[in-house]
């Protein structure tokens, strides 16, 4: 019996040990995976860091593009606008913008916490960084549309308002857990939130400020449209390359997760859409005006990139080419429409590139999405996805146009919007900043 008892105890003990061991094992496994989880967060911060710096660099891209497509006498002003909308924008976004966009939601309308990034952990801080460069992108898009005639102080005020209010509110609705996102509206990396908002604000600005002197002249009862050439195509092209480079961060980073299986796909669709946009813009200008136009081809590339941004992770590579092709065609058409028919003076094509194609990008999700959760029209999803995407477009249009027009209207009333004719002729560099951008160079300025 003793033996039996012994055996019994032994067995029980061994089972216990087995049991306790099981705990130990699973503990250590848990520990193992805890270690893993830890690294995951750090790696993710690294991922966001990488994408953030790429998107940050887009500021340089926008700056070079706008510089290149406008006249030399305003180059210093363009530099200041592009530098300052980031600098001011990032402080404003730190103080209030981020809180409105990502704070605890009040009825899905706006956020009400996280101002000054109070109580943020590293992950949140890296998320803020990623968001602030997006906000700055939305803001800087406008710069090109109102270039060469806007009072500097007016531009600064504008940039406070867009990064502190206009952008964060719509951003909250779509990305911050607000009502639109709850309805299922999908905007992966910001064709709508960033580009359409920026493009519409540029439209409002361009309309309220009016065209540059000499752009449209009435001859008899016909309005003659004059081309005002950009002064530095090499810089403009550099800008586009920088933007494309940054766009990889913009789109791929929007997964917010280095472990997302979409990253490769997003790179691929982004590349193909941009390429297709540039090619088609070149082809159209080639056919229409007999010569392939560099500045329009550059815009075409950007158009393709903007267009794929909303659906970069849910549109197939081949369809991304289609989206890009349409985007490139849209930019050529709408630049002509806006300039020759509507007589709105948009020096760099910001409205066409970001506005028109931002809109197209949002709609394209509704047409081409192959994601089972939100199938597009052409993938058998009927009008469900498309409908909500269109609703989103309407909402963005309504919100942005109303607030932006109001803003620019007030600025106009306050005489903060436009420089005098004389200052415009002299160039904003001298009149607004007392500087010369190309000291020594002999530059012929007869406009």
């Amino acid at each position, binding site marked *: 019996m003793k033996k039996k008892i012994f055996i019994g105890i032994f067995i029980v003990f061994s089972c216990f040990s087995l049991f306790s061991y099981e705990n130990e094992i699973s503990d250590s496994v848990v520990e193992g995976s805890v270690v893993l989880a830890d690294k995951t967060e750090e790696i993710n911060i690294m991922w966001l860091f990488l994408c953030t710096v790429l998107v940050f660099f887009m500021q340089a891209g926008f700056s070079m593009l706008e510089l290149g497509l406008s006249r030399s006498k305003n180059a210093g002003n363009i530099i200041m606008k592009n530098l300052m909308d980031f600098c001011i924008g990032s402080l404003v976004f730190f103080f209030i913008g981020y809180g409105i966009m990502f704070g605890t939601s009040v009825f899905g309308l706006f956020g009400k916490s996280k101002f000054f990034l109070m109580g943020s952990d590293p992950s949140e801080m890296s998320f803020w960084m990623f968001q602030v460069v997006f906000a700055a992108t939305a803001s800087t898009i406008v710069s090109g549309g109102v270039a060469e005639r806007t009072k500097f102080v007016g531009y600064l005020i504008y940039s406070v308002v867009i990064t502190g209010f206009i952008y964060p509110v719509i951003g909250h609705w779509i990305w911050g857990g607000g009502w639109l996102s709850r309805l299922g509206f999908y905007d992966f990396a910001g064709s709508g939130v960033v580009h359409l908002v920026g493009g519409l604000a540029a439209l409002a600005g361009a309309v309220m400020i009016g065209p540059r002197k000499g752009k449209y002249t009435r001859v008899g009862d016909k309005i003659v449209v004059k081309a005002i050439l950009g002064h530095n195509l090499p810089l403009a092209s550099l800008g586009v390359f920088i933007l494309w480079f940054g766009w990889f961060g913009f789109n791929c980073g929007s997964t917010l997760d280095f472990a997302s299986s979409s990253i490769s796909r997003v790179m691929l669709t982004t590349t193909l859409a941009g390429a297709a946009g540039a090619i088609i813009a070149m082809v159209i200008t080639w056919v229409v005006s007999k010569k392939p136009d560099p500045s329009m081809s550059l815009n075409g590339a950007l158009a393709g990139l903007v267009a794929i941004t909303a659906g970069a992770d849910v549109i197939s590579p081949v369809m991304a080419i289609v989206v890009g092709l349409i985007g490139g065609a849209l930019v050529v058409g709408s630049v002509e429409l806006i300039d020759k028919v509507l007589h709105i003076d948009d020096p760099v094509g910001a409205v066409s590139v970001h506005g028109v194609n931002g809109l197209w990008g949002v709609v394209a999700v509704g047409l081409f999405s192959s994601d089972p959760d939100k199938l597009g029209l052409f993938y058998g999803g009927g009008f469900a996805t498309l409908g909500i995407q269109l609703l989103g477009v309407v909402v963005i249009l309504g919100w942005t146009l109303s607030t932006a027009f109001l803003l620019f209207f007030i600025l106009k009333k306050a005489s903060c919007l436009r420089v005098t004719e004389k200052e415009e002729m002299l160039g904003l560099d001298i009149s607004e900043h007392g*500087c010369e951008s190309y000291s020594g160079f002999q530059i*012929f*300025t*007869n406009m």
Partner: protein
Amino acid sequence: MKMITAYIQPYKLNDVKKELFKAQVFKMSITNVLGCGQQGGYTEIYRGVDFEVNLLKKVRIDIAVNENFLDTAIEAILKGARTGEIGDGKIFVTNIEECIRIRSNDRGSEAIG
């Protein structure tokens, strides 16, 4: 044959050209120059240090005309370039002794136009 040399404000070039075309003067040569005149220039500040810009951007137009076109051309320039403000510029007239069209070797007043 006379050479009209006008120094005008750069932003007036288009207007001047328009007036000249109206007056049937189609040929001219344009140079960009820096002018020092009554306008006096202005002072700007670069990195905290004043710099005086007393050479202002001007455009120089050279037009060779036959005598009978001289006054019309001058009138056209005056019309196109005048704003009434300091800095409008000057017109100088000098004599041309010979004019040759390189392409055809035409000489004299028929070569001018």
